[in-house]
């Protein structure tokens, strides 16, 4: 059974201000008449946030929505949640639904944490008494006991988001729409939310999940829908769709003003302290990454450096995933290098990584382990393996020989 069926959903918004509001002000059926009389005026300054989106989400499944900002993800959630209605098309939802839009649940700033919890309960059909019985559980989850009788307007954004998510956990929902919940809140609270969501899924809950944290989408969902300018451009297993999505984002960037080739990385020398740091004494000058097969199965990297003559230097190439987790490193033996400028070539073949998006880190170390220069590149390597249908237990491709016995 489908929990959500969206059929050819189109949502048209007006952009700009001023007289555009007159069009909105007209109630049906007057607006239909005006639209027929002045079609050009009626359609001026409009854009389709969603354009013919059809998605069916079976009960008990988890679907991630990905896409760049303005692709229509939040609009879709709002329509499913019933906050707004589609301009054309239809949405059918079955089951008790709750939504976290923009990481907030629609609390009233003047009401206290407790009152807001009661209000949210009332909006979802729970009596004050039921919510009062659950308030300890909610506060315990949110870890904000001290603030329960403080107006929400005095909460920090993180605190408000904590209470919002915690209140949702008490609503016995069957269908949960979560929009960037984990953008706020600290790491331990995020972990708590993820654990709760996993338990919710095990209990058979349906989840629609929007996040720019792609590894989270990959972990939380088995299916992803990729929206681009209000259209569905990809719908399938999360791993496949996310890789295609990130690959497309990388290509879009490559097509930008820097005009570099698809799998080349040549980055300006900017030490911003975040992506680049080190004790100095030797610097990576330029990095050139070649992906000869175009699918990340092997990499050829050329580094040029700028250093005085050194007896021993260790060159490293490592990878971090899109969530910033360290994935693996290739390190050279200590090498004596001549002074001034030089080049080092590093061939990784095969690249033992599974389908995903990885950012290279290049570094020069001294033999005692001191980091002279460590630089996380802002261009990613996209690894795409065919038929990559496996248990998702991390990014390392472990070489193994398999055989079937009789």
């Amino acid at each position, binding site marked *: 059974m489908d929990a959500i069926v969206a059929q050819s959903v189109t949502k048209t918004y*007006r952009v700009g201000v001023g007289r555009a509001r007159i069009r*909105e002000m007209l109630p049906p059926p007057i607006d239909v008449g005006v639209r027929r009389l002045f079609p050009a005026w009626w359609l001026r300054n409009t854009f389709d946030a969603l354009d013919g989106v059809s998605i069916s989400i079976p009960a008990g499944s988890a679907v991630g929505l990905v896409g760049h900002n303005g692709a229509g993800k939040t609009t879709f959630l709002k329509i499913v*949640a019933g906050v*707004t209605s589609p301009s054309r098309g239809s949405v059918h939802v079955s089951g008790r639904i709750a939504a976290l*839009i923009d990481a907030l*649940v*629609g609390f009233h700033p003047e009401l206290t944490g407790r009152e807001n919890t009661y209000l949210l309960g009332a909006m979802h059909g729970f009596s004050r008494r039921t919510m009062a019985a659950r308030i300890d559980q909610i506060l315990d989850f949110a870890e904000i006991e001290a603030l329960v009788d403080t107006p929400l307007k005095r909460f920090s954004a993180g605190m408000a988001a904590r209470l919002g998510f915690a209140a949702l956990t008490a609503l016995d929902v069957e269908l949960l729409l979560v929009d960037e919940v984990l953008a706020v809140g600290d790491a331990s609270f995020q972990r708590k939310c993820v654990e709760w969501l996993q338990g919710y899924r095990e209990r058979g809950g349906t989840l629609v999940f929007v996040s720019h944290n792609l590894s989270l989408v990959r972990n939380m969902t088995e299916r992803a829908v990729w929206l681009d300018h209000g259209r569905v451009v990809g719908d399938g297993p999360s791993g496949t769709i996310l890789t295609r999505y990130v690959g497309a984002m990388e290509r879009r960037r490559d097509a930008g003003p820097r005009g570099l080739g698809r799998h080349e990385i040549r980055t300006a020398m900017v030490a911003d302290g975040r992506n680049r740091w080190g004790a100095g004494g030797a610097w990576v000058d330029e990095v050139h990454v070649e992906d000869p097969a175009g699918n990340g199965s092997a990499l050829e990297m050329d580094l040029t450096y700028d250093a005085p003559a050194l007896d021993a230097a260790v060159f490293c190439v490592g990878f971090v995933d899109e969530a910033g987790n360290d994935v693996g490193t290739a390190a050279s033996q200590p090498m004596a290098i001549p002074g001034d400028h030089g080049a080092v070539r590093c061939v990784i073949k095969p690249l033992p990584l599974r389908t995903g998006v990885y950012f290279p880190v290049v570094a020069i170390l001294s033999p005692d382990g001191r980091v002279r220069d460590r630089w996380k590149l802002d261009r990613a390597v996209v690894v795409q393996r065919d038929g990559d249908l496996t248990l998702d237990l991390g990014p390392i491709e472990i070489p193994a020989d398999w055989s079937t016995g009789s």
Partner: protein
Amino acid sequence: MAGFAWAIVPSLITLGAATLVFHKVARIETGAIPYSVFVFAALAPWTFFSSSLNFGVPSVIQGQAMLTRLAFPRAALPFSMVGLALVDLAVASVTFVAFAYAMGEGLPITALWYPGLLLIEIVLTVGIVLFTSALNVFARDVKLAAPLLVQLWLFLTPVMYPLTSVPQSLRGYYNLNPMTGLVESFRRVLLYGQAPDPAMLLPTVVGAFVALALGSWYFAATEARFADVI
């Protein structure tokens, strides 16, 4: 901070100011009924009407945070403000009864008409509030204009002066105002021991149901767009 006092203190201040300006200075006379009692009988229902409008008109846009994230009947927002004004009216009504007895007027048996008149007033108020609060989502001018119009409406309604002091030439216009029939009826049942005059109340009843029909239709027709436009 003062809590419940806000339910009644503004009315009492208005009453005091009206007594000073219209009675003591402008020498408006109200016959056998003391001026303050005479005004209070109309001011309490008027205040229900005016504060419903003043708070109800911006109520939908004030609910923006909820409106853009939760699905709920949008009419709950203006209705809650009308409900709040109704609580204030309950406090004012109790105060009025105490006041009437303290001034030696007491309450005639026709006061039993009060709930019926109040019902008509609620219908009228809800209709206007639904229409204006929805319109305000699309044009914030409504929010700015509403207090001015309510103020003007107060002056054009015989709340602080008797209808009998209005020149005959203007009476026709006065009777078109649905609030005129309403406050006059409240006075008849609360002060004079008379049943409401059907001819006088007719424009009110018609106005109330037209307002309710128009207001609820417009609100229902446009509420789906609130979250998009707000």
